[in-house]
């Protein structure tokens, strides 16, 4: 039972990590390697609003999500626009920007126990004999709500449909008047904002430090590779595979082996289905 519950929680946390990365990559083909850095930056920004400026928790979280979204937007127009179309240059730029953010935070001495976000609500409940605190339930709720909202957004709004158009065929999308740069920057902004949302709900569960930023990036990449980058079901399935794999490994082999799970999962999936579990043929062509 505890395996089931904590497996679900871990999986949803992983899905939250991966959602933003997967969204931005699926739409505009931009691999945002600054994803983990933006995640940690959100934590820092919430902390600053909360403790230095003294805003209420909800407001500071909301402000941080908006700011990080804008940062993603600015990243596109400021840096990525100049190297657009050269995937490796895009990758270098986002990766370097991410490391620069993380290293600056570390240099400013941003680690230690005093930098942690408070829980939304203290306490917890017992589910089938397993104690679960409210924050983790909140994570599950956020995950489900986000996925539903995302689905509605990309299927029923104009911008969402433009997103999907870009994802399916950029040139055709251009020819029906969808401006590629505009949608690309919006997708990066949305991806960054999703990273920020994940940070707001997940970070109170643990400590905040720069190393987490790299971890988030790694998990987002692993989930993306396993699931297939463009498909939401694939992303969710990928995070459940890694999540349950990790919880089961921690239970039966010991927590120190948890870190191997993503790598083994990637290698197994690639051996069986190189396009990822839900990848389309188009994706297969891109990958191998």
């Amino acid at each position, binding site marked *: 039972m505890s395996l089931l519950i904590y497996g679900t929680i871990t999986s949803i946390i992983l899905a939250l990590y991966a959602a933003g990365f997967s969204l931005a990559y699926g739409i505009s083909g931009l*691999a945002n*390697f600054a994803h983990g850095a933006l995640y940690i930056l959100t934590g820092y920004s919430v902390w600053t609003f909360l403790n230095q400026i003294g805003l209420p928790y909800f407001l500071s979280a909301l402000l941080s999500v908006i700011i990080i979204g804008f940062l993603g937007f600015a990243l596109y127009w400021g*840096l990525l626009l*100049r*190297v657009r179309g050269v*995937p*490796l*240059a895009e*990758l*270098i*730029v986002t*990766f*370097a*920007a991410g*490391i*620069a953010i993380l*290293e*600056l935070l*570390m*240099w400013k001495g941003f680690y230690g126990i005093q930098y942690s976000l408070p829980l939304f609500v203290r306490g917890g409940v017992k589910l089938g004999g397993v104690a679960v605190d409210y924050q983790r339930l909140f994570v599950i709720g956020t995950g489900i709500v986000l996925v539903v909202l995302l689905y509605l957004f990309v299927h029923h709004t104009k911008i969402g449909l433009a997103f999907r158009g870009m994802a399916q065929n950029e040139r055709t999308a251009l020819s029906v008047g969808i401006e590629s740069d505009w949608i690309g920057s919006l997708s990066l902004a949305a991806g960054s904002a999703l990273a920020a949302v994940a940070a707001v709900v997940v970070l109170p569960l643990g400590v905040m430090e720069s190393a987490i930023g*790299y971890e988030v*990036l*790694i998990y987002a*990449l*692993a989930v*993306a*590779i396993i699931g297939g980058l463009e498909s939401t079901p694939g992303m969710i399935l990928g995070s459940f595979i890694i999540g349950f794999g990790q919880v089961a490994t921690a239970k039966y082999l010991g*927590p*120190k*082996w948890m*870190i*191997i799970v*993503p*790598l083994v999962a*990637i*290698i197994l999936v*690639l*051996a069986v289905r*190189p396009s990822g579990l839900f990848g389309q043929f188009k994706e297969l062509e*891109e*990958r*191998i």
Partner: protein
Amino acid sequence: MAEIEARYRKKRLDRGIKARADTIFAIASRREILYLILPRVLPVILLLSLPFLLPVYWGKVLVYACIYGLLALSWDFLAACGLFSLGQAFFLGIGAYIAGGLSYYFHWSPFITLPIATIGGGVISAALLSPVVRLRGVYFAMVTLMLPMLFMKMIETTGLLGGTHGLSALKPFPAGWTGTYLVIGLFWVCLFLFRRIINEDYGLVLRAIRDDDRAVMSAAINIYWRKIQALFIAGAVGSFAGAFMTHHYQFVGMSAFALDFSILPVAAVTLGGPGTFAGAALGSMILVPLSEALRALGGMRMAIYCVILILSVIALPEGIFHYIERKYHQFEKLVRVG
């Protein structure tokens, strides 16, 4: 954006001496011979004599620059066949830990552990990455980025091979210049060997895989096997750098998998100019001393690298070496349009 009417354009022409030196006249006069040989020989002589000229501290920096230079060369070699690695630290770490383990547990001398670590590191890197050679571009980069971090975590959590403390008191190189000249020599050998290989038939196939892998497949060449070979070569070079570093500092620890070793070679190649190997060498010879000069800034160093990296990708995408090469071979003049 308002269009500015162009009245002049830049015209580039090969210098006469370049045209002559490309042909049989290369050996016709001393001038042409010098034109061909000087750019190759001067840097070699310079680097070989530097250990005598520099103070001890900067001598150490030079060794460091050569280690990073080897990593950058190996990165450039992988990039030449379309494998874009963000995890050079992985190759370095594998080599470092093989040499360190052999030296720590069996007390073998560097001259036995270095070859073993080089070959073994190449084999292990190629074997571990062989399931993912099917991936291209960004996907391959993702996996290589993960590998060193996972290895670091594994050593940290399982406590194998010294765990967080690392292995210390390893066998050093014999006193004197042996170590320094070993790494400088290997650096030059790799540079010229890679430049040669990439223009042979073998390298032609590798570059073709980068440009259009399907065309290569349809020529009945097994591209996965070629990629694994390239991984072996690059992995061996990276592992040598790691094994050398281990014996040079007589210590190996988790820092061998640190991100510095992944990001600096990429920065060096992008600054120096990708695809030429000379650019990779030049870039690391610029960046590593620069990093030493910036040492006072402490943790800011990585951030500054990243800024240099971003600037060089955006502002000078061709890299320094391509620029110099063009100026050496060609002259430019403005001609009137119309």
